[in-house]
């Protein structure tokens, strides 16, 4: 027993000594962002380019579609070879993925980070090595990247709110909100925007539930909400799967009068646009993946030798039964 304790102590002390000895380290954490010529890797239309795309996870259909959009857009650029990695929601894995892309000396890095703070350093490392970096959907801290492409969640929430005030419930009414995972940035931003959108109207959010972005959780929470608030008229869900889950719960409870609005509008058979077209949801709000735009940015940087804007905010669009078929077709043009 005593020996055990002594050994444990030894490990601790050794680790401590090492940590203390590390004071003269070359910093990766606190390193400065170097100025980068964003088109340095540009070899023009005759070059061949390898692009690494580090995806945060492929568990969400939205991210599968993002990869798909990149693949489709890149297939039209013969100079591009895009390699994909999937971090499976693990920040550590995503750091390794990016490090591997650096080792492979990719000509450009695309990344949709799992979380901002943990990925900031490795993204900056790639950028400082002269690799142009296109950040998609979720941001990183600081400015160690070439361009950020993403949609504005506040704006999308506001658009959803305005649809409630102008079209769905112009006279006002009681609704419930099914939020995304509490603590995640989009959940907060989509809520803030929505509240701006319904400000000054007679619409009242009588309850908010955490649906964790998932269909099954949305359904489960809606079961309870229907019991607690039988007088509601509509549901604002922060993504389409939760809206669909809530719809299922309402169906099971015999509430065919309720109206549902979601966000995302994925142009896939199981996505929100089809749900609107088929009448389960009244509307969804398009949250573009930015895949095509990312490939466009890569083309500008690598082939056209043109700089790109530091931030590109993607436009959202309201999808209702009137335009669902058209939007679906447009987004799936190859």
């Amino acid at each position, binding site marked *: 027993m005593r*020996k055990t304790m002594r*050994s444990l102590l030894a490990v601790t002390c050794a680790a401590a000594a090492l*940590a203390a000895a*590390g004071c003269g380290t070359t910093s990766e954490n606190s390193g400065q962002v170097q100025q980068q010529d964003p088109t340095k890797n540009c070899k023009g239309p005759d070059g061949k380019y390898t692009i690494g795309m580090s995806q945060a996870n492929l568990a969400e259909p939205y991210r599968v579609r993002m990869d798909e959009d990149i693949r489709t857009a890149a297939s039209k650029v013969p100079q591009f070879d895009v390699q994909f990695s*999937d971090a499976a*929601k693990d920040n550590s894995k995503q750091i390794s993925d990016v*490090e591997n892309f650096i080792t492979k000396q990719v000509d450009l890095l695309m990344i949709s980070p799992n979380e901002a703070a943990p990925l900031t350093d490795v993204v900056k490392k790639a950028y400082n090595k002269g690799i142009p970096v296109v950040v998609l959907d979720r941001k990183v801290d600081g400015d160690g990247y070439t361009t950020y492409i993403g949609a504005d969640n506040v704006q999308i929430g506001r658009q959803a709110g305005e649809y409630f005030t102008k079209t769905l419930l112009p006279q006002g009414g009681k609704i419930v909100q099914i939020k995304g995972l509490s*603590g995640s940035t989009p959940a907060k931003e989509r809520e803030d925007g929505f509240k701006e959108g319904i400000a000054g109207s007679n619409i009242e959010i009588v309850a908010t539930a955490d649906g964790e972005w998932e269909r099954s959780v949305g359904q489960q929470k809606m079961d309870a909400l229907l019991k607690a608030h039988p007088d509601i008229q509509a549901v604002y869900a922060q993504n389409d799967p939760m809206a669909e889950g809530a719809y299922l719960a309402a169906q099971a409870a015999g509430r065919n009068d309720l109206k549902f609005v979601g966000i995302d509008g994925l142009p896939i058979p199981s996505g929100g646009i089809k749900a609107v077209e088929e009448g389960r949801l009244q509307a969804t709000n398009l949250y573009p993946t930015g895949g095509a735009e990312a490939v466009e940015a890569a083309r500008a940087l690598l082939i056209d030798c043109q700089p790109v804007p530091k931030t590109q905010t993607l436009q959202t669009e309201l999808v209702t039964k009137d335009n669902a078929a058209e939007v679906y077709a447009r987004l799936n043009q190859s």
Partner: protein
Amino acid sequence: MSNQTAERPSAAAPRKRAGTAETLFRFQSFFGLVAVFIAAVIFSPRDDEGQILFLTSDNLFNIVRAVSEIGIIAVGLTFVILIGGIDLSVGSVLGLAAVGSAVLMVEDGLGVWATVGLVLLAGVVFGLLQGTAVALLGVQAFIVTLAGLQIARGLARMWSGGETVQISYGDGPGQAPMLFSLLGERTFGGVVPIPVLIFAVVAVAAILFLRTSAYSRHLYAIGGNEKAARLSGVPVNRVKIIAFGIAGFCAALAGIVHAGQLNAGSPNDGIAYELDGIAAVVVGGTSLAGGRGSVIGTIAGALLLGILNNILSLNSVNTDLQLLIKGLVIVAAAALQRLRPTS
């Protein structure tokens, strides 16, 4: 478990047996590691100057850095698995420790050493409690640590309010001391990541400890035949409880490294890490039935899986196919163990 016991009643002294085949099997993971390494060199892509990308020091250290957290966890797991137990809670304990490190420094303004000390202590206590439940209450380790997995994850969520706690460095309030940021950095001319050094220290300490202590003989004895060990005067309960304490300590240490590397503690950190850790132990040749295996094997196993990950990624092997290949390697390693001569 009973299978092994029947075959090897004298499992208490596993190092005494010799023979070429036996040596081959004992160092199976080491040979596997060498084979995978050579394969990685052969299949490595090269850059424009013909340099083998896999062998660049940057890449090799990236591999060990990526492995270090799982490696530290796996070293701790080896102790538990040697007694025929299992610890499913280590991934969650890592998450709890990462969150704890962040909260204690950023929100409670504690210094680095106080934070590290408290978090390690929490990890040890958590492990000891689980060990106590296993040893004294007689509940199966699988069940106890499955509950531990949930409890630690729940504590991590509660402690962080369900949100990622970001760590920024500096002297001001709400900032962590610069010292902690060293975990995310590299030393020796910016080449060797600090987590690699910590992994190395843990590995060496664990190897020496298993080589020299009486405790080690007790571990193998219990894993070989618990009843016989008890009859021959081995303090079975104490040895078990300590093994879980060591696993908790290692998981907490990995969590501290995690938080320092990522500048954040997230309640979702370390999900499924226990499975990667168990994979490293199994590939390393330690029997899940207990009584047989080594920390060196575990380290070789962790590195083998790390190199495999790296070379598959460098060759842009499709992610789905990567999972499949890694699964096959684990099965192959376990199957080789079955072929091992037992007399």
